[in-house]
């Protein structure tokens, strides 16, 4: 479903990604772990071209993402993204946050879009907050709205960049629970996370990144239980 070939990314002189090859199957949940600055966010952001790719190729459903003839906006509608800082639109109510893109891009009418939004809000447990503004919500609630907003485009893949890192500890679980539910329903997900418990429990595969390359990847029980590389061992011994 997502195929990444020899992906390179540099910011000027700084080489952040140094050749990544990976393939993600449909319905797979892939967690990306690794030390700060190892290029996890950059990797994720390359998938929907929030960062321009320096070299290599990414294919989503067989379509090359970084091709001049590809409509990147079309690709992005198929790839939902959830950010560490939520990035809800503060000038819109919760429901408007969710209905805006489906109405604008999927050409849904207001009624359909609102029905969909309320359904998604029920799913993340926030139906009663539909007419509030984002800043009236707690961090955990905002992040759940952000997930609902991404889901409203009916994406084939969801990308999460440390979705719980900006949250107070007591709010982490409400967000993780929503993500678990999504994984359970068969959503294809790529999750950059520091929540090792979540990775261990939910991931089909875990990628350990360091220095802009995939050092090691595999089933969570292998990565966490029996890491092969020294760098993976060193990292895990610090975070577990």
């Amino acid at each position: 479903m997502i195929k990444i070939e020899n992906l390179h990314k540099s910011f000027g002189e700084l080489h952040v990604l140094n050749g990544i090859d990976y393939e993600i199957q449909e319905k797979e949940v892939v967690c990306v772990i690794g030390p700060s600055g190892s290029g996890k966010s950059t990797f994720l952001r390359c998938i929907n071209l929030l960062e321009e790719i320096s070299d290599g190729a990414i294919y989503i459903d067989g379509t090359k993402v970084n091709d001049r003839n590809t409509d990147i906006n079309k690709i992005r509608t198929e790839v939902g993204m959830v950010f560490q800082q939520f990035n809800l639109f503060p000038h819109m109510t919760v429901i408007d946050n969710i209905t805006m893109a489906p109405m604008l891009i999927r050409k849904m009418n207001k009624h359909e879009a609102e029905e969909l939004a309320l359904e998604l809000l029920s799913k993340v447990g926030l139906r009663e907050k539909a007419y509030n503004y984002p800043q009236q919500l707690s961090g955990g609630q905002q992040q759940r709205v952000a997930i609902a907003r991404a889901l409203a485009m009916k994406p084939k893949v969801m990308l999460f960049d440390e979705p719980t890192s900006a949250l107070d500890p007591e709010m982490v679980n409400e967000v993780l629970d929503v993500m678990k539910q999504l994984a359970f329903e068969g959503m294809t997900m790529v999750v950059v996370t520091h929540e090792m418990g979540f990775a261990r429990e939910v991931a089909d595969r875990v990628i350990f990144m360091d220095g802009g390359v995939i050092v090691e990847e595999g089933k969570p029980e292998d990565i966490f239980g029996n890491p092969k590389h020294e760098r993976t061992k060193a990292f895990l011994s610090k975070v577990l």
Partner: protein
Amino acid sequence: MEFLDFRWDIIWNYRESFIRGIWVTLILTICGFIGGFILGVLLGLGKNSKKKWLYFPCKLYIDLFRGTPLLVQIFIIHLALIPTLFGHSLGFMVSGITALVLNCAAYTAEIIRAGIQSIDKGQMEAARSLGLNQFQAMRKVILPQAFRRMIPPLGNEFITLLKDSSLVTVIAANDILYAAKVVSGAYFRFWEPYLAAAALYLTLTFIVSKVVSLIERRFSIEYNPRKNKNEGRVGA
């Protein structure tokens, strides 16, 4: 004492000049501002662009018009530019409005640019990641937020423009200041007409600043949780 010996009747005698002056000042300012705002949005967006061929002309324009006195711009436009383009003068109104539009555009462009840049870049990323194109993201997400922050500086710009419009008197625009000049010429008295002009400008700027703070408050209502007009429509 001469000073206390004001003769307000001479202002009254020329009240029609002053009333016409108010209208001329308002027309110059409002047309200048609206035109300047529209041009300023384009210039501001251009100056925010990563495309060099868009950025540099916009930057050049802004630097030129902010770096030279409005009075000089008025003379160039009225005495050189318009006669060269059309063969003759088109009157103070056309020259005056043109000068104010072009000048105001440079200042609003900076306000627009700063307003857009003040919006967290995560907003643009979130919008783009949903599949909105650059234009849609600007229109739906960035500009509505940026405009709210731009209201106070735009209000200041309007007030500045209102005052600066008095410079158009030099090309014989019959605005407020011109009315004062006429009175002073007729009676050789200077206190009354110019104080009257000052009082009129002060009144206008006072009204404008009140209107601006009203607009400001109106647009911030949605931001204020306690005044949220949709509250109570839970699950509607």
